[in-house]
């Protein structure tokens, strides 16, 4: 299982344009729907923990590994999701000056933008819809957080806190 997760996350790393949010729906599909390693409830809980902790949100991948195989799982999963992208970064950064203004590179960047937006929408939707039937209470919390974030500039941790409070009121 740990080898499978390492290979799978390493593959995701190479196509994770837009960072973690872009690959969250695929992670959910793979570890919850396809493999059944993590329950849908656990997935949203791990996601919540990763969002509330400081640091790059890619640490969520490490938490999935932790759930599957403890500390070694966490290290392997985080290493797998980070290393291929790091190698690509290392390599491409040397070419950046040369190709920064190249029409093909600019076209590629423009091509990525709408896909990343569609994927981040998907990430939000998939996380807020853990079961086969949508739960209006989760959609309400997600919608409120989205609106609040767009309407203000305060630290998003406040919205996570408010989401937790709403969760206690609506869900327990």
């Amino acid at each position, binding site marked *: 299982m740990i080898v499978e997760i390492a290979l799978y996350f390493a593959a995701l790393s190479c196509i994770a344009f837009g960072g973690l949010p872009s690959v969250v729906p695929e992670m959910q599909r793979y570890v919850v729907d396809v493999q059944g390693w993590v329950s849908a409830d656990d997935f949203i809980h791990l996601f919540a923990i990763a969002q509330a902790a400081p640091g790059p949100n890619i640490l969520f991948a490490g938490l999935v590994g*932790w759930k599957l195989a403890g500390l070694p799982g966490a290290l392997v999963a985080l290493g797998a999701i980070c290393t291929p992208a790091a190698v690509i970064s290392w390599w491409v950064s040397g070419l950046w000056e040369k190709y920064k203004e190249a029409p093909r590179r600019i076209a590629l960047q423009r091509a990525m933008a709408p896909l990343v937006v569609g994927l981040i929408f998907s990430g939000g*939707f998939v996380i807020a819809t853990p079961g086969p039937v949508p739960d209006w209470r989760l959609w309400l919390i997600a919608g409120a957080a989205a609106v609040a974030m767009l309407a203000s500039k305060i630290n998003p941790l406040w919205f996570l806190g408010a989401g937790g409070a709403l*969760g206690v009121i609506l869900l327990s």
Partner: protein
Amino acid sequence: MQVTPPRSLRELFAGFLAIGARSFGGVMPWAHRTMVEERRWMTQADFAETIGLCQFLPGPNIGNASIVLGKRWFGLAGSIVAALGLYALPFIWVLALAALYSEYAAQPTVRALVTGVGAAGAGLFIGTAVKLGRALARKPAALVLIAATFLAIAIGRLSLLFVMPAALLVAYLAARRGLL
């Protein structure tokens, strides 16, 4: 503005450690504050350019920035040291939180609270997507691609490993025709 890049690996490590340690609620503002304002390792323009490069690359933006900047200043050793500094404390934090959660996961109130936090986190993704999507809203081809990606991934639950290459090819051809 006078800038002085880090003079030693130790200084590089300490800087990225400081970014990771404080970055509650999002890393990028802290990266800016640490590297541009406090330590004056780089100019604002240089920072923006580096982040621009990292947004173009797959993987976590700030993780890639640690690789790119570490390489620029100290080569391979710099990349490794910067990345380790960035992830060290948040990694411990996130596992500590997860362990704490496991202790109380049986309690319905705790589960409701954590689910609420997760739903709010999902909302932050949606807010981010709206923010980024606004810049594209005037291009019909972009809206079609956003909708198609959403339908394929969120509703159709197709694998990203297939959707990404196919969608990227279509989008690239559209971009070359000036549609994006």
